[in-house]
């Protein structure tokens, strides 16, 4: 058995040295993805989002408001419009994400204690810039009101210490756990990048296994492994499991040590998650390739399934918010388990006592891989018996 394993491994390495194209392309793709995501969102939170002002008043007050807006980090005034319609059209051209409309006579009304109102329009068609610019402008709105109040209270002769207590009776001290800067990067990168690695592993595995069938080398492969299907699969996929795991761990070194995302738990535990993700994707790949004998279909099915894992992992849209049926379905995606493990390890520093269900989940995928092996061994028995019925539908196509 040991010999069979070594022989199959050698056979695979020979195969790899003859056609290294896929592995090279996938590695380059991964390098590109890491570079892309790390440079795309290097700001963490979008800063200086373009907004506009519609100033009907043109008074000292409206100008001061503009100055205050300019002084914030979040937004930046790119235009001043005369009327609402112009600003709305600019929004539709996506030149701005939000605008303030300052009504006529605001200064006069303010002095007369008539509580004038500023209108704040924000576009939620683009959720992130929309809500960030909304947040910045709403803060300015509150600050403007507070500044006026302070001025009034000062004139009334209140002591400075009491003024704050009057203007702001309650304060909320926010502590975003494990992402103090509320940066957008950790949300996305920590799951999307391993997710990309996972999809690549899945499709590559499906391709690798069904390629033996397509090139009619299945019999040769099994002969090398002395007819032992699990050994054949393990030896064939081991080099790639090692390579993809290595890439995933290197990627996490970049994310947690170079980009310095929060990692409260141990890096070793997180690396274990990466390895399990790669193995689970390979197991799923074997299962799909064994289940669907036509290479056409198996790869397309794997692609459709693989791309869904980003949605179903719950990193962008919480799984707890999906219908109960889909909450159950989400566990059919290895990336879901990886994400849960990542949250426990990195964001909360939890021990195994908290994330053991994740390990069980991954183990189930490995069982699925075993089921794939059983299917494959049935198929090879057919080939050896010379029936060639179940696999030859695809072989005929090649002719």
């Amino acid at each position: 058995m040991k010999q069979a394993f070594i022989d199959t491994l050698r056979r695979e390495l020979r195969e790899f040295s003859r056609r290294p194209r896929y592995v090279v392309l996938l590695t380059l793709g991964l390098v590109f993805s890491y570079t892309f995501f790390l440079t795309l969102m290097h700001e963490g939170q979008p800063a200086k989002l373009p907004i506009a002002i519609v100033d009907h008043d043109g008074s000292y007050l409206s100008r001061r408001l503009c100055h205050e807006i300019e002084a914030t980090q979040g937004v930046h005034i790119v235009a001043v419009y005369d009327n609402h319609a112009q600003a709305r059209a600019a929004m539709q051209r996506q030149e701005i994400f939000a605008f303030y409309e300052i009504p006529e006579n605001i200064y006069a009304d303010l002095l007369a204690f008539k509580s004038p109102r500023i209108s704040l329009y924000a576009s939620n068609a683009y959720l992130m810039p929309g809500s960030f610019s909304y947040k910045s402008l709403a803060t300015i709105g509150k600050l403007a009101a507070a500044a006026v109040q302070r001025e009034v209270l000062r004139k009334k002769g209140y002591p400075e210490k009491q003024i704050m207590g009057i203007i702001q009776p309650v304060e909320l001290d926010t502590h975003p756990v494990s992402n103090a800067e509320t940066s957008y990067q950790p949300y996305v990168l920590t799951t999307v990048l391993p997710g990309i690695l996972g999809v690549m592993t899945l499709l590559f595995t499906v391709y690798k296994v069904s390629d033996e069938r397509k090139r009619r080398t299945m019999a040769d492969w099994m002969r090398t492994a002395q007819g032992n299907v699990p050994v054949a699969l393990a030896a064939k996929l081991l080099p790639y499991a090692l390579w993809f795991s290595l890439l995933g761990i290197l990627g996490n070194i970049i994310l947690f040590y170079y980009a310095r995302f929060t990692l409260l738990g141990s890096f070793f535990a997180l690396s274990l998650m990466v390895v399990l993700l790669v193995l689970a994707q390979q197991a799923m790949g074997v299962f799909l390739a064994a289940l669907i004998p036509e290479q056409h279909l198996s790869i397309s099915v794997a692609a459709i399934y693989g791309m869904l894992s980003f949605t179903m992992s719950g990193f962008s849209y919480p799984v707890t918010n999906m219908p109960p049926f889909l909450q159950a379905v989400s566990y059919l995606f290895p990336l879901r388990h990886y994400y849960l493990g990542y949250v426990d390890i990195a964001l909360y520093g939890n021990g195994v006592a908290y994330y053991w269900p994740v390990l069980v989940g991954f183990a189930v995928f490995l069982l699925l891989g075993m089921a794939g092996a059983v299917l494959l061994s049935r198929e090879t028995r057919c080939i050896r018996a010379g029936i060639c019925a179940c696999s030859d539908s695809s072989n005929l196509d090649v002719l």
Partner: protein
Amino acid sequence: MNKFLQRLIDIWEIFAGEVRYVFHDGGVLLLFFVATLLYPFIFAAVYHSEMVLDIPVAVVDQSHSAESVRVIRKIDATPELTVRYKCCTMDEAERLMREHRVHAVILFPRDYGARIARVETARACLFCDMSTFLYYRSVMTGASNVLVDEMKYIELQRCEQMGLTEADAEGQVTPIGYEDVKLFNAPGGFTSFLVPPLLVLVIHQTLFLGIGVLFGTARERQHRQRIPIRLRRGAPIRIMVGRALAYLLMYVPVVFIDLFVLPRVFGFPHIGSIGTLIGFLLPFLLATIFFSITMAGFFRERDTIIVTCIFFSVILLFLSGTAWPQSNMPAVWRWFSYLFPSTPAIQGFIRINTMGAHLSEVSFEYLLLWFQTGVYFFTACTSLRLMSWLRRKQII
């Protein structure tokens, strides 16, 4: 005239051959007609609730004051938050957070009520789960709404105690008010924001991968039946037009269902005028088809394109400027994003479909799509000519 007729017949033959070819390939059919119809249904099911509401939170009330109890009641009354646990100590609340039973903890320190009574700023602490952006967003919305309301309540109460009339009190508490209007997606729903770009991306990617697979297969099997013999030595324009027409006509029903029917059935945003959308989507489909044919020239085997390019869907989504604004992208990536028809298509589709823009507001995207159509048509013809030249050399 005869020559013209002959050309039309050529195009027809190529068109018919291509359609036959697609309908004999299970993998491509799966991409063209199953994936494009399956994904919208999945998106509709996954994102059916738009907002993340009733997030379970734990409160730790150490002050036991009337003020803190009132705030807790208000928190529970927000649509975003639900007070699921009332804990005695922070340790207890921390454990609940670690077990993901709550996604936020709100702490009222011992002096909360006393500080309000002394007219000092009272502090409440909020600890928020950051595993998902949407938890953070909903928790912050809920909590800050309660905070604003509570501040106003306390201030008005104090004014009343000072003997001010209601109108005077209002003027003092809010000297300048502001009213917010959220346009195009009033509740800030995640579905209305994410699904339209995803639908466009699905169309782009299935077309791209499907065409890649078709060309890869043809190359792999040295299949050329789909081009009549007399046309094999040239006529790239006729071949291109015939093929593009085939894909275009196959995608008309798909686009119609995905971008017109399903948004209306599932209630995704759809305020754009249909005429504008049709005018806008035509160059999108053409640009995508020619872009895909050009790229397909680089792949010699059937499945290479799916295995090596599928991850690019994620990158295209981020390049399109939906998740991260275009205004804040490094210039390199912004220019890079203009290479792909998905970027202007997604931008334009959101603005027409979700924001009700006309072609004049998306003129940049519209012209870019036509420009891409022109450039990729040329590159597709060139790559076809190059390939047939290479093949001839090999055969000879």
